[in-house]
């Protein structure tokens, strides 16, 4: 085997309270296309950031072309020959294609001005090599996303890169553009450039990559040739389930909410479609039923939830709540119809950090506590007291700032915000992520209790155990489409992973 062009050895990175990377090793030979996979929080981005000089490792070493190196800044890594292409194109949309290609290294005339003629000519040549036919004098944003991605690529390799890191490059591309991208990647690999390829689309990995490294919770759980690894095993590595022991026993308090089958569904989602994101998602949820949405990262689970509450405008498809179809959906209308959603990103989309616990709880209910525009403090206090007690929210007082609370308590505050509206349908997107074990159990028990009272619940969780224990039925998504539905005794971790793997072979839509 040839000497690796870049190698990380026993790299450790700590953040306050988290061990982000725990003795991670990874090496890339020239011309190798290496897949890096893992779920959210596995440490992929941290590793990339260390390789590109954004972060520095706390321990361990990075060797570049056989020499130990430290990249203090991203620029150091770039000068050394490590280029990165991010998910979202990192270029300047209003500048011309050629300017973007040559940004920071423009050809100059003798008196130091930019030699536009030469720059445009060379830019056109560079793109032609990748079979991209675009007018290089037009602003970057006027060309397609795929072509923009190509510009980023040619920019990356034009700087004499030895290593190319691609972070989910295909997430916003059309299938045809993906093909072009693959062709270019193969060409680059043939030229001896080592490529680290991050993606959640397993199909792509099997098509493109020779080796794979799986990260989970900051540790390398597997590394080796991708051809030796079948999809099911790969998925089980990513999700952290030992195939031999996935069959869980133990009674779940969640199953058997009576005659759910007989009643009218609270939610009917019918053919929710949004270009590049959702492809005809249909499912229903009955009162007292907990329906889980399963799938890998990027499968469209959160997007489905957002489409149901009207926070993600869809191209087509219908959402029906308790028999009434929501037209031109918006969060406001969905909430009025009885839908509540606990968003995945608690900080960005949930809490209002500057306000108190009380104000965060009553936020959505304000109009209902108002007479002639004035909010009744007594009615607020009553609600807040009830829910703080019922959800056991630990705060020094209702007037404490919500940002001072722990993650678990913030989550409970958000739950209270929705529960005081008495919703019919509750959408929970990763309700227990990032909260401590005790609070996690409390939230899970609460979901169970609420379903017992007849609330319809949609549960999104990357934690398979939580999904299997919590859900009566699991709808499995992949690449924005429903690929399977499991109910009753069929709901098991193994079955979910098998469904995910079985459908991986099918071509993308």
């Amino acid at each position, binding site marked *: 085997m040839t000497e690796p062009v870049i190698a990380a050895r026993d790299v450790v990175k700590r953040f*306050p*309270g988290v061990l982000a990377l725990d003795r991670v090793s990874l090496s890339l030979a020239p011309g190798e296309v290496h897949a890096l996979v893992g779920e959210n929080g596995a440490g992929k981005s941290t590793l990339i950031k260390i390789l590109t000089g954004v972060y520095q490792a706390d321990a361990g070493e990075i060797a570049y072309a056989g020499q130990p190196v430290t990249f203090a800044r991203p620029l150091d890594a770039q000068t050394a020959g490590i280029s990165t292409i991010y998910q979202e194109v990192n270029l300047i949309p209003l500048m011309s294609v050629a300017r973007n290609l040559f940004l920071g290294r423009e050809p100059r005339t003798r008196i130091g001005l930019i030699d536009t003629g030469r720059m445009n000519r060379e830019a056109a040549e560079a793109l032609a090599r990748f079979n991209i036919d675009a007018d290089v004098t037009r602003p970057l944003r006027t060309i397609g996303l795929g072509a923009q991605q190509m510009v980023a690529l040619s920019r990356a390799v034009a700087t004499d890169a030895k290593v190319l890191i691609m972070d989910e490059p295909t997430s916003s591309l059309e299938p045809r553009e993906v093909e072009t991208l693959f062709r270019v990647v193969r060409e680059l690999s043939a030229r001896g450039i080592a490529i680290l390829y991050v993606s959640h689309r397993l199909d792509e990995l099997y098509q493109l990559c020779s080796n794979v490294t799986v990260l989970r919770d900051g540790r390398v759980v597997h590394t080796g040739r991708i051809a030796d690894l079948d999809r099911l095993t790969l998925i089980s590595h990513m999700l952290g389930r030992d195939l031999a022991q996935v069959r869980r026993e133990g009674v779940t308090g969640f199953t058997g909410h009576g005659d759910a089958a007989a009643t009218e569904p609270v939610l009917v989602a019918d053919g929710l479609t949004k270009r590049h994101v959702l492809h005809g998602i249909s499912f229903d949820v009955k009162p007292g039923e907990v329906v889980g949405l399963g799938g890998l990262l990027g499968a469209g689970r959160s997007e489905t939830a957002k489409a149901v*509450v009207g*926070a993600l405008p869809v191209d087509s498809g219908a959402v029906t709540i308790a028999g009434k179809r929501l037209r031109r959906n918006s*969060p*406001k209308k*969905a*909430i*009025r119809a009885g839908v509540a*959603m606990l*968003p995945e990103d608690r900080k*960005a*989309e*949930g*809490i*209002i*950090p*500057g*306000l108190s616990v009380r*104000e965060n709880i009553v*936020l*959505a209910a*304000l*109009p209902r*506590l*108002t007479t002639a*525009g*004035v*909010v009744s*403090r007594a009615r607020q206090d009553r609600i807040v007291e009830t829910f703080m007690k019922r959800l056991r929210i630990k705060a020094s007082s209702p007037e404490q*700032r919500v*940002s*001072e609370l722990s993650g678990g308590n913030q989550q409970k505050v958000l739950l209270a*915000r929705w529960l005081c509206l008495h919703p019919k349908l509750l959408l929970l997107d990763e309700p227990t992520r990032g909260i401590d074990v005790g609070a996690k159990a409390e939230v899970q028990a609460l979901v169970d209790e609420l379903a017992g009272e007849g609330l319809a619940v949609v549960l999104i969780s990357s934690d398979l155990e939580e999904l299997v224990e919590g859900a009566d039925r699991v709808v499995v998504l992949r690449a924005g489409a429903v690929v399977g539905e499991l109910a009753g005794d069929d709901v098991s971790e193994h079955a979910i992973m098998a469904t995910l793997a079985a459908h991986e072979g099918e071509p993308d839509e």
Partner: protein
Amino acid sequence: MSELAARPGWDRRQLARYVQNYGVYAAVVVLLAYNALFTRNFVDMGNMRTQLVQVAPVIIVALGMALVIGTEGVDLSVGSVMALAAAVIPLYLGFGLWPAIIMSLLIGLAAGLVNGTLVAVVGLQPIVATLALLVAGRGIALVIAGGQLKQVHNADLIALGTNDVAGLPVVVWIAAVLALLTGLLVRRTTYGRQLVAIGGNRAAAGLAGLPVRRVLIVTYVLCGVLAGLAGVLATARLRASDPSAIGNLMELSAITAVVVGGTPLSGGKVRVLGTVAGALVMQLVRATLIKHDLPDSTAQMVQAVIILVAVYVARERRTR
């Protein structure tokens, strides 16, 4: 580990928070006390009256500005809206005082509607959206006024600018009542709470079903109407409608009052009483320096320092 880090800085944190919350009121008291002791004829009825009359329009405009800033926005057009309101007064004064005032307020409302729509519906940055009206508004006002100052002789309007009620000038009463109403609006009404929530986290507020657009538009409208009212009062005091001078640089005075009063530019918090105190501090500082025969340029530099100090004190401490 956070406990270890927190311990030694605890007292300083507490102090910082105290300064953040009450510093501006302390500044008002200190300035008054200083002048009572060292400045002749400062704390007497005549001078206090002048100071209050001068600061009242700033307070009225700053109240609206505080609401807008609370939504993480800013309204640069308030000065021009004052000029617009002043410009229409002579046109309608023939019908009586009330029609003229109502037209002025309607002009303010229309300006606010334009600003609010540009921000909430079109999605422009507030600073850009309101910049348009800052530039255009005064131009339109000059066109309406035919480019010249017009004396007003309506006795009712002049009375509004000069008369007293219960020992205090009418304008001061108006500013005080409006401050009280704005305080209630922010603290006690659904609109006020929604405004603060939207300023604190717009994405979350939208997902919680709050009428984000409506609240933003109403906020800019309130700010516009208050600026219109300030324009009327300025005209009454000047006894003339002078669109080229009325409200000049008022946007900066108002923003300064709000910031010095402890409302963060990042939104999510509205300090109404603080805003009033902020306007008073700036007024008193300037008056103090002038009474001590320091040139206006010095006053401006001191004011600049106060703004920097206020922003430094008010900056959000990271809790994470």
